[in-house]
């Protein structure tokens, strides 16, 4: 008891008032939106009760983690990594399948998604590794090793397969490497490789959805058929090579000499990205590819992949300034808005709460992440800074992708809005992450 009292008094003494007010607001508005969106169900309090239980457990865990000195984690990086991998492997072996993803443990009363916890464990592992190799971070070998740590998790999760849960891994890893001082060329190479691998199949899918556009433009047809037509692909790659050599030749005329390594590495990345795109194309299902790219122009598939985005935009927009009041939103209550308690919970706030509450939600989310970044800046040691940075990045990435998705700016990835969306596991892990943040924050002076 005495220990708990000590932790409490420590937390209260060192409390970051902005951080806590933001957190309370986000949790509150999330509960209101979920409750409003379930008011038409047979059991309107079911979701909110589950969510509340998850929040309570999460809050307890948060207090525990806040009291626990985060610095211990640093020495157990390897063990945590092995533990997290074992967790992911065991879910592959013993887990149950929900919506085609084998990523759940069905426990009595609730089911649990290990990937939600392992994503935080990975942040700690990465932070520990980078902290250890801080001085050699600009070396390619360390850079690659860091990526391999992430890749291990990534592969295990893709075996479930749970595409959307892996998404936050890339920004978290890259941001941690970036703030630790990794070379920008390395980061750029990874980004280029990743975007080529993902964008090629997505853009091809996007243009194939618009047969009229393809008919009118032969150039476009040429590019779109390239991945399935070796002849076209060879022409495109050939012309890229030619352009690179022309640039190099031109620069040499200007007496600027560049090592041959750069164009060759660049080419290698382009080639690797293009070939990986074939793998990505195969690993994503047709509907997933459509969903990921259709946000650019939802009308082209208004009855299929574009339906969610169109309805979400209508839902938010129709709220106008004052909103339709909770429990009275036509889009939400009549069921036009899909996934209204999970991925599209923000649309409910937009429709029923109106512009004021929706903007307030965005503002408080920003303040929340900003304070998390401040925790990173004020941390006592490098490891603390890195962990806080990773957690802040994760929250920011989820928020930007989710808010962008519901407003039609980002692809439909199925990422929830952490702290607001309905979902026990993500609520738990969010609260744990906040616990770690608090642990870092209250120990900043000693």
């Amino acid at each position: 008891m005495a220990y708990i009292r000590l932790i409490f008094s420590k937390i209260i003494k060192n409390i970051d008032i902005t951080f806590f007010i933001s957190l309370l607001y986000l949790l509150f508005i999330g509960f209101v939106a979920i409750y409003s969106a379930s008011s038409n169900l047979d059991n309107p309090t079911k979701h909110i009760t589950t969510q509340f239980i998850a929040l309570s457990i999460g809050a307890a865990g948060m207090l525990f983690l806040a009291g626990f000195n985060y610095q211990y984690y640093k020495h157990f990086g390897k063990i945590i990594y092995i533990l997290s991998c074992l967790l992911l492997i065991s879910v592959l072996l013993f887990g149950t399948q929900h919506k085609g993803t084998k990523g759940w443990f069905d426990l009595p009363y609730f089911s649990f998604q290990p990937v939600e916890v392992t994503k935080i464990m990975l942040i700690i592992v990465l932070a520990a590794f980078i902290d250890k190799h801080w001085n050699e971070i600009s070396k390619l070998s360390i850079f690659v090793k860091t990526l391999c740590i992430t890749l291990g998790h990534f592969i295990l999760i893709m075996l479930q397969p749970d595409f959307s849960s892996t998404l936050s891994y890339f920004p978290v890893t890259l941001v941690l490497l970036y703030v630790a001082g990794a070379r920008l060329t390395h980061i750029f190479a990874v980004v280029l490789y990743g975007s080529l691998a993902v964008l090629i199949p997505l853009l091809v899918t996007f243009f194939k959805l618009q047969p009229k556009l393809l008919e009118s433009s032969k150039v476009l047809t040429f590019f779109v058929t390239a991945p399935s037509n070796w002849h076209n692909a060879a022409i495109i790659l050939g012309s890229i090579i030619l352009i690179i050599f022309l640039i190099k030749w031109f620069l040499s005329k200007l007496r600027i000499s560049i090592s041959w390594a750069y164009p060759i590495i660049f080419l290698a990345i382009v080639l690797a990205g293009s070939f990986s795109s074939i793998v990505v194309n195969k690993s994503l299902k047709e509907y997933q590819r459509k969903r990921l790219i259709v946000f650019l122009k939802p009308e082209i598939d208004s009855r299929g992949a574009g339906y969610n985005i169109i309805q979400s935009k209508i839902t938010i927009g129709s709220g106008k300034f004052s909103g339709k009041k909770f429990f009275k939103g036509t889009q939400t209550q009549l069921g036009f808005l899909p996934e209204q308690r999970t991925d599209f919970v923000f649309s409910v706030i937009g429709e029923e709460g109106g512009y004021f509450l929706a903007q307030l939600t965005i503002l408080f989310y920003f303040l929340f992440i900003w304070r998390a970044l401040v925790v990173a800046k004020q941390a006592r040691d490098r490891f603390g800074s890195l962990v806080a940075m990773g957690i802040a990045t994760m929250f920011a990435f989820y928020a930007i992708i989710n808010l962008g998705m519901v407003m039609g700016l980002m692809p439909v990835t199925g990422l929830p809005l952490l702290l607001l969306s309905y979902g026990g596991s993500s609520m738990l892990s969010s609260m744990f992450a906040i616990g770690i943040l608090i642990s870092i924050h209250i120990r900043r002076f000693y």
Partner: protein
Amino acid sequence: MSWSTDNRFAYNLFVEKHKVILIILIFCFAVLSMKLFYMQIIKGNYYKKISEQQRINTAHERAFRGLIYDTNEKILVNNVTNYVALFYPFEQQYEPTEESIEKLSKILQKDIKPYIEKSWRYGRVIKLAENLTINEVFKIQENKLFLPGITVVKEPKRICHDSIENAHIIGYVNELRAEEIDNIDNTELKVGDIIGRCGIEQSYDKYLRGKDGGFSFEVNARGKHQKTFDYESPIIGNSLYLTIDTELQKTAYQALKNSSSGKGAAVAIDVKTGAIKAFVSCPSYDLNKVSSAKDYKRYLRNKNLPFFNRCIQALYPPGSTFKIVTFIAALEHLHFDPYTIENCTGKFELGDRFYVCSSRAGHKKLNLISAMAYSCNVYFYILGLDLGVRVIDAYAKMFRLGEKTGIDISSEKKGFVPTPEWKKAKMKMPWLKGDTVILSIGQGALWVTPLQMANLMATVANKGVSYKPYLVEEIKDSNTKETVYKHEPAENEKIELEPYTWKQLHKALKAAVEYGTAKRTKFKTMTVAAKTGTAENPQGDDHAWVVAYAPADNPKLALAVIVENGGYGGSVSVPVAREIFKKYFNINEEYDEDFINGIKNGIH
């Protein structure tokens, strides 16, 4: 203590990068906020409208269009009930399933797939088939289980009586298409509404169209009923009373159809008001059949152009009927003595060219009156040369050739009166005397519509007074029978001529019937004044014209008849005019060859 002091250098580097991350974060959230502001504040009303549209489904009950009557209050157009199969979207299913399409196609024994593709719109009701028979309606009801979302509703359908003869006056109606809606100012119209496409149905559309009723109901995303709002009963459109006499219309159509080529137009105008009594374009189409795509295409492919309204859309050279204008110009402008004798040898020499007369042998010696009666070209060639193109043009324009008559249906052509400037600009050639010569007998680039010629004849009959021709006499509210609109005769500016000119002209026109080219329309009980024309047509056989009015002493009805490629005006068009007069004035008189040729009267 903390690493910010232990390792200042590394910490500063970290803080710099931390700043970059923070800036990226601020940027992303600013973009998100702006997008939110744009969607909710700037485009809020737009999204609100869409959300209402998909929430509220309306079961329209289509209003009946107003009825159309002829001048004797005989019904020309009314409505019958038509059964239509509709698909209502449900459970995020926005088109009928493959099985139900197949099933319905089997019941109706035709492929309905193209129909669906044509009328599909996001989240809206789709029309699958119309004109269902009672049998088909029952079959659909029986198979309701296999046809999810498909229902049969009643819809009014337009039925026209004497639908072939009246087709060009009434015009057809059809549904407003999705691609047209943006080009229409009327915001009350919606896709699928019935609108008039031509004729009276088009120009009086806003009177004829009623107000749709029905009830609206709220649906959820699965298309399930949530609650129903008030029912509003549809209101029938106003009734139209036309100037047209259906019996006369039928007579005229029959006469044209039985003429030599079976193609042509006849327009009859009440001289005292401008009311159009007959308005026939032949061949015509069956108004009740154009709604079927098959018949529509068949009509469209027909070489005789049944959709072409020859009364106002066809341009013909007026031929000798134009001699009326030359006649007036000569008397007014030259103070020409109509009893001047000229010798017609059957041809007229100008420079190195010959212009022939209607009679190859020549009319020998005649004055202007008999030149009109026999339609002697040579006499008018001489007059034309004396008058010159400017004067002839001026008189043609005075009689409103080259301008629209202003009839109350659309797509009227205005015709053309050639000028030397036009010829210079168009053909890069100066106006020659030869052009004036042929202009004086209504040839060359002179183009008129049958309606213009009928109107010209009404003006002549009325000694310069004329009215804007019109088809709709009165519009009444269908329920209360109150008059909504009543036509007031719109008098055109009077053409002032010397009384002597009118007297001589009327004399000449009577002479044409008495012993001249138009004698086939001579009656024992009524005198008729007329002028025939045989317009040369570079594309084919001559067009046969006649313009006339009757009774000659107290004109009531003026008309113009043209039989396209008909041949000689006097023998082809004049009998049509005779039938129209017989019907209109109720004359029961057999065609008497001896009387026509004046043998009994001893004249000639």
